[in-house]
């Protein structure tokens, strides 16, 4: 009769080790998904075409990315590595040039791409433009408060944001070079 026999004792001492082994295995193999990205606010949709705006051309910094992923900035070809520095000079206009923004609040970045532009290049360009603004805000924060932008009080940040507003206007892309 099986009931009468003494149940064999299972050694439970190594159970903890097995549990730890499993824990370590999962710790090593799982990659915690860090979700990061470039935050963008899209303009609201309206069926009417946007109103014609009279803009002084000196305030507009036009960036065109074509289907070959080439860059055309204010009518001239430019390399993506120069874009950030160039954008910063345009916005701040330290030398008060005639053909650059009157003041940062008036500067407008106009970004246009083809439907055939690769997304990677588009995001790179967008990133550079955003970086230019972020660097300017950082410099301004250091100048005004001697602190990094992210450590400023909320209203101080707001004031700097208002003085250097991020205006990136995106035009409807041209139907060019889309892969079928």
């Amino acid at each position, binding site marked *: 009769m099986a*009931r*009468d026999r*003494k*149940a064999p*004792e*299972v050694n*439970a001492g190594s*159970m*903890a080790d*097995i*549990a730890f082994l*499993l*824990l370590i295995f*999962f710790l090593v193999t*799982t990659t*915690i*998904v*860090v*979700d*990061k*990205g*470039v*935050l*963008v*606010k*899209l*303009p*609201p*949709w309206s069926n009417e075409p946007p109103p014609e705006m009279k803009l002084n051309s000196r305030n507009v910094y036009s960036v065109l990315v074509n*289907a070959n992923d080439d860059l055309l900035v204010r009518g001239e070809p430019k390399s993506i590595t120069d874009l950030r520095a160039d954008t910063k000079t345009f916005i701040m206009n330290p030398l008060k040039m005639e053909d650059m923004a009157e003041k940062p609040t008036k500067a407008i970045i106009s970004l246009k*791409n*083809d*439907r*055939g*532009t*690769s*997304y*990677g290049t*588009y*995001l*790179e360009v*967008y*990133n550079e433009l*955003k*970086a230019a603004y*972020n660097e300017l805000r950082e410099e301004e924060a250091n100048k005004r408060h001697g602190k990094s932008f992210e450590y400023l009080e909320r209203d101080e940040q707001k004031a700097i944001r208002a003085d250097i507003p991020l205006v990136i206007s995106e035009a*409807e*892309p041209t*139907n060019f*070079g*889309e*892969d*079928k």
Partner: protein
Amino acid sequence: MGKFTKKRGKANPEVSTASLPDIIFMLLFFFMVVTVLRDSELKVANNVPSATELTKLEKKSLVNYLFIGKPLDKFQATYGTKPQLQLGDKFADLKEIPLYIEKHRSSVNEKEIPSIISSLKIDGKVTMGIVQDVKTELRKSGQLKVNYSAKPRAD
């Protein structure tokens, strides 16, 4: 009744409970791991580009994901090689975006609706055509906060 008393008289084998906590821990770990991994299964190639100006997405419940990329090899027979949109677990048409956004909106607190962010996970090789169409659909459905998902890059 007699049967029961009979049984009680026998020496019942003692089950060791020393390992019980470990088993519970093991189960806990198992579920922890499984819940993290259980993201929507990717059906499109999704190698996001890298960027420097990144914002972290804080509240997972307020984020919805849109994937764009070439269908993976095993799906190319049915869906072709053109970049496709994936919503949740399946391939979707552009027209399904408003419904997808609406569904997500109804699942969150009314006050938090304005802070919903759409995370666009787009393969770097995709052309802007489809991206533009998706953006237009998002704008039409009033979903204006968008996050272009990207990997961090040392500058």
